[in-house]
């Protein structure tokens, strides 16, 4: 049986700038990558959604705070609440936190510097739709590029997330001052994930690392399984 290409949407907000990289990477990993404009109040027929990196609405007020009110974010929220797969990368992670779909908030880096480099990450969960191709405890090398990437939550919330296994990725070394070196988290049910590193910039050895493909290929595979089970 021919396996269908899963349809994965990538939302473009005013100020998104990694949307095309995400579309390209998903297509390279054999998904049908579907651009979604921020004014679309209804999503097309999709098996997963990616919120890309960038500086939506100029990062005014707080990163992701304004994008939360765009029609596409409302549609993505509905999609996520119905169990749909949603991955937020960098600014997309910030939007998901502001929208209340993911716990915590991203603050200015402890160093006050914009950080743009490859970072080592440790995989904490390999059983999520976003990490099936990863192995728990293994290290991935994926670049970050952010000024506001310091993930924060109050201690009681952090303890709850750690106990629930909602920490998906951790920096293997201090990067930006994130609480417990947290680089990526998921929601309770595990269908929504956000991370500050950019897997779409690490899908080919020519780019310095192909480790990001492990995350995106997991997503493509999980979206394909869903597409098949719904067919």
């Amino acid at each position, binding site marked *: 049986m021919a396996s269908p290409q899963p349809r994965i949407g990538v939302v473009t907000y005013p100020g998104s700038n990694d949307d095309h990289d995400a579309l390209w990477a998903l297509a390279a990993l054999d998904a049908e990558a579907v651009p979604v404009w921020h004014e679309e109040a209804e999503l097309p027929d999709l098996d997963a959604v990616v919120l890309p990196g960038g500086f939506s609405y100029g990062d005014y*007020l*707080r990163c992701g*705070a304004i994008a939360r*009110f765009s029609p596409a974010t409302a549609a993505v929220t509905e999609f996520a609440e119905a169990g749909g797969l949603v991955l937020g990368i960098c600014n997309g992670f910030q939007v998901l936190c*502001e929208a209340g779909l993911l716990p*915590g*908030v991203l*603050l*200015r*880096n*402890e*160093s*006050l510097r914009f950080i743009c480099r490859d970072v080592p990450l440790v995989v904490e969960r390999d059983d999520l739709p976003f990490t099936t191709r990863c192995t728990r405890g293994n290290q991935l090398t994926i670049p970050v590029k952010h000024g506001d990437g310091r993930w*924060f*939550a*109050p201690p009681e919330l952090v303890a709850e997330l750690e106990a629930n296994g909602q920490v998906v990725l951790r920096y293997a070394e201090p990067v930006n*001052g994130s609480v417990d070196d947290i680089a990526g988290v998921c929601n309770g049910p595990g269908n929504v994930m956000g991370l500050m590193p950019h897997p779409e910039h690490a899908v080919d050895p020519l780019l310095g690392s192909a480790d990001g493909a492990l995350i995106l290929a997991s997503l493509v595979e999980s979206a394909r399984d869903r597409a098949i089970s719904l067919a």
Partner: protein
Amino acid sequence: MRATVLVRPKSGILDPQGAAVETALEHLGFAVGGARVGKVVDLEVDAADPAEARAQVERMCEQLLANPLMESYEIELHG
């Protein structure tokens, strides 16, 4: 009615901007401590009386102007 909203990083949250400002002030020769950097939002609110204006601005703070995880807010009403 004019309103001013002061948004501050909650106490206990590391504020690197505040720390940088403090260091800069020390370089200028000022003996300072505890510098924190927040935001000011000035608004014109359409409301019948101060109580209604305050209630409206409080809803604005809760829904958008402050993120309760990391920020506290204070509302001032003017005339």
